[in-house]
């Protein structure tokens, strides 16, 4: 399952939880601001072996239509998926 973001970002003090406790299943915000390079999947070359899915340290690769896709809200751009991809379906591209 792809993690889902809160629809509303808390802004006012009253919207901040009283304790460091909050309903589970939410991520407070996207967390990939420091990424310099991003993995881009070539869907033609991807064979759906799921090695990248298994090796991604942040769990941001998810299954889609028998192949894979990347959650760029949380991908840190480490490039492990590119290294592990035998068919060479992943390329790292500079963030603009």
């Amino acid at each position: 399952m792809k993690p889902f973001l809160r629809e509303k970002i808390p802004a006012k003090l009253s919207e901040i939880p009283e304790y460091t406790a909050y309903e589970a299943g939410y991520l407070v915000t996207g967390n990939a601001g420091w990424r310099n390079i991003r993995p881009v999947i070539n869907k033609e070359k991807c064979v759906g072996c799921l090695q990248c899915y298994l090796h991604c340290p942040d769990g941001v690769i998810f299954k889609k239509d028998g192949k894979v896709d990347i959650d760029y809200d949380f991908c840190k751009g480490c490039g492990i998926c590119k290294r592990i991809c035998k068919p060479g379906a992943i390329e790292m591209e500079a963030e603009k």
Partner: protein
Amino acid sequence: MARKFLSGNEAFAEGVRLARPQVISAYPITPQTIVVECLSEMVEDGSLKAEFIHVESEHSALSCAMGASAVGARTFTATSSQGLLYMAECLVYASGGRFPIVMMNANRSTALPWNIYGDQRDSIALLDSGWIQSYAENAQEALDLALMSYYIAEHKNVSTPYMANLDGFVLTHTYEVVEIPTQEQADAFLPSFKTENKLDLSHPRNLGFTAGPDYNTQFKYKEHLGLLRVREVVEEAEMRFAEIFGRRYTGLTENYRTEDADFILVTLGSISGLVREVADELREKNVKAGLLRLRYLRPFPDEEIVRTLNGAKAAAVLEKDISFGGDGTVYTNVTAALQKAGSRLPVSNYIGGLGGKNISAEEIEQIFEELKQGNVKTVFLGLGGEDA
């Protein structure tokens, strides 16, 4: 209601038993050991139905209590001195996580030189850790605070851990006649622990998460507000307590003969009993002496202090603590409260009782004598020798 001859440690353990904690995790350290021993015996003989978890350190003791609190259990731990300092990392976790754990701390000096006797440098060094801090004067108050601490810490407007301090040896190891309430009375006073701040399969929550620069201030501010709300909850707890047990406490501070006093000694903990006696003696010599006892250091009773000291000619803070290179920390807090209120009262600082050094009635009388002179000074009691 039974009457028993108990030490401070034993009295506190009786109070904890009446509060029915579900999980106790503690590591023994002098002079706290007896409270832990008593509770382990109560669990062993079945008079307290709790999980008693043996841990390998104080760091683990509090971590364990946090885990238990995070599933909604009422928890207890106890420590002292180096043990409290070893726990320090977990103290801020518990307060930031708003887990209403109750801990008894037997006030003891901190190394080096190594010393097992009482002073208050251990807990006062951790004044900023976000815990409520109370200081008992006698064994009866210790027992009563054990019960009240759960009421206050677990109150929905507070939800903050509570450190109940007892002077090491002077209070933990001396015996007094103590009234022990019945379990029915205790149950009538203390509701069972209910919180939304817990792991719950039917209502899943993330606990203890990260909050970066965008949100950290807000969480810390809410933690601060939780502590500030302790004042009104203490009042509520003490009113309920008086109705059920017949003993009425006086909030964050206690005044003794301060109403018309010219000279007021501000202090905390077990030394207050002696100050009371000295004040009585001085009154017979027509010296208008009074005592302001700080029952709590966090939240800090700034309003009460300003109100009580207003009208006095001079005051002094007597504390078993020194912030090296600064002043006594209690003194710093008291003078800050007065300064905020625009008071220009001369306040002196007396540091005494370090490493268990006795503070004598003569020394307290001397403090009042020096207050008459109106000079502000810092004095270390018990240095001895004429070059001191």
